């Protein structure tokens, strides 16, 4: 890393920490921005870096929400009694119980979702291309329907979790830093991961899986591990969302295939598939665009969003980073180098 890069990263980190204090009115929006960044980065792990376009990553988000809710409730109450009471006098949590629930809930959600990814991946990674996309979408939709008929976790009504046990503004800060912290850790993790042999192996699977198999690469192993890492982080942000939203139900907020489930794909396409910064930039542009149209184009906001998606998919498939890579290939290490090796074949 050059000195310039180090300074850039320090500035970005400082801005991340300062942002909720500089813009106190936008704390929830900033927290949601970090959520978008995390789901985009994790979507890109399989979609951009490995060539497996999943439309079902929202499954981990919804499952993370439910796992975290069940864990944090189960520490204090009987889950079935709590959900059937639906908030009726049964949601007294001491601060200690609350924060223990949040911590264990996040961890449990991450681990549970990682395991889900291993099991689902074993079944679904036999599918390629559009079949994988539809297969994963099917899993997310089916999970939403199943959970909405499962009374133990509240059925279609969903779950109401306890409110943050202190000042609500402080709560907004708390959730902002949980999301941002997860995002920063994920970014650092991926920055390292894509530089290892593991990163090269999933890139090889993206470029030509049949060739990778013919070269003896353990393709299934890499696919499973990659998706379960993605599932782990999505599960964690799902858990944070559950505590942030307080009340959520299965179809519209947990397994929201048509909202967040699609947004994460659009963010990555907009920013540039298969790059480290693409999903981050895409998520920022998309989220700002969405917030602006929701405020100033009310009534037309879905039309504007739809237009953005169409334009991105049809005219701008390589995204912002892909466009840059075409214009400035030398920034991405593409160069012809003079031969300075002393030995080798005659040419």
């Amino acid at each position, binding site marked *: 890393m050059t000195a310039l890069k180090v300074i850039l990263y320090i500035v970005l980190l400082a801005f991340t920490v300062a942002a909720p204090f500089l813009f106190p009115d936008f704390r929830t929006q900033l927290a949601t921005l970090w959520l978008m960044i995390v789901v985009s980065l994790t979507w890109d792990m399989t979609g951009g870096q490995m060539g497996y376009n999943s439309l079902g990553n929202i499954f981990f988000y919804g499952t993370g929400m439910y796992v975290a809710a069940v864990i944090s409730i189960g520490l204090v109450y009987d889950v079935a009694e709590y959900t059937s009471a639906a908030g009726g006098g049964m949601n007294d949590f001491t601060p200690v119980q609350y924060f223990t629930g949040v911590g264990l809930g996040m961890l449990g959600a991450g681990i549970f979702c990682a395991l889900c990814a291993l099991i689902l991946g074993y079944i679904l990674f036999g599918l390629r291309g559009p079949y994988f996309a539809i297969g994963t979408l099917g899993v997310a939709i089916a999970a939403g329907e199943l959970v909405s008929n499962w009374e133990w976790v509240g059925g279609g009504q969903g779950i109401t979790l306890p409110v943050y046990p202190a000042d609500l503004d402080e709560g907004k800060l708390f959730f902002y830093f949980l999301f941002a912290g997860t995002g920063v850790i994920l970014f650092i993790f991926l920055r390292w991961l894509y530089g*290892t042999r593991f990163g090269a192996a999933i890139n*090889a699977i993206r470029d030509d899986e049949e060739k990778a198999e*013919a070269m*003896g690469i*353990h393709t299934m192993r890499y696919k499973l591990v990659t998706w379960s890492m993605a599932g782990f982080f999505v599960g964690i942000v799902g858990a944070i969302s559950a505590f942030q939203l307080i009340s959520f139900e299965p179809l519209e907020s947990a397994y929201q295939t048509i909202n967040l489930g699609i947004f994460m794909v659009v963010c990555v396409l907009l920013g540039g598939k298969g790059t480290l910064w693409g999903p981050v930039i895409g998520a920022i542009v998309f989220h700002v665009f969405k917030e602006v149209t929701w405020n100033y184009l009310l009534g037309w906001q879905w039309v504007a969003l739809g237009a953005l998606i169409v334009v991105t998919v049809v005219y701008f498939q390589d995204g912002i980073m892909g466009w840059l890579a075409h214009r400035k290939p030398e920034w991405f290490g*593409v160069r012809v180098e003079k031969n300075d090796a002393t030995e080798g074949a*005659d*040419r």
Partner: protein
Amino acid sequence: MSTVIEVRNVSKSYGGVIANKDVSMDVHSGGITGLIGPNGSGKTTLFNSIVGYHPIDSGSIKFENREISKLNVPEIARLGLLRTFQQTRIYGEMNGVENMLISLPHRKMKLMESFGNNSAEDYERADHLLEFVGLYEKRFLRSGSLSFGQQKLLEFAMALMNEPTCLLLDEPTAGINPTLINGLIDRLKRANSEFGITLFIIEHNMRVIMNMADHIYCLAHGELLAEGAPDQIQNDQRVIDAYLGAH
């Protein structure tokens, strides 16, 4: 000379089409074995059967005395039996060096080792082999942007990087500029003599295969038509008939 690949009575049919019928052949350790035959005679099918691309209907295939006809593609590749493709396959979005580094042998690589970085020796070896096939200057270009012939050379270098015991090459000179062919023949021969890799080559270019191979098998209509040293094959009336269409 010991036998590396032993094919015995292998048959494979696609629906009603019999692609290989009762084919038997041996590939000897350290040699260069050729496989020729008119288009559609079942050469690539036999290659695909050997590397585990599809199950065979009957017969047996052994690699270093181990039955491999029931194993799948990556398992066979990790044993050290590698193939290149007729339609060249490289990792198009990655540059030459990355293509080489990911081709390091995965035989022994454990999952935890995959989280490590490549060593300086690995980089040196990649550079050396890229130099060997004449792609050193273009090693940081996106390999998908290389010409077909250059991609073919890159694929060959990747195969060498994998340190196979035996390499199956499906038409290595097809689509390569005639002036480059001599260079490629020389490199194939050197891979055989310097790196000790046994070669098994499908080739349509008679000048190339007669020049390189020490033993040649000829397939026609899915069956073994003839075998022998290059000069024997060249003068075999059945082989000449098969190529000129006397059937």
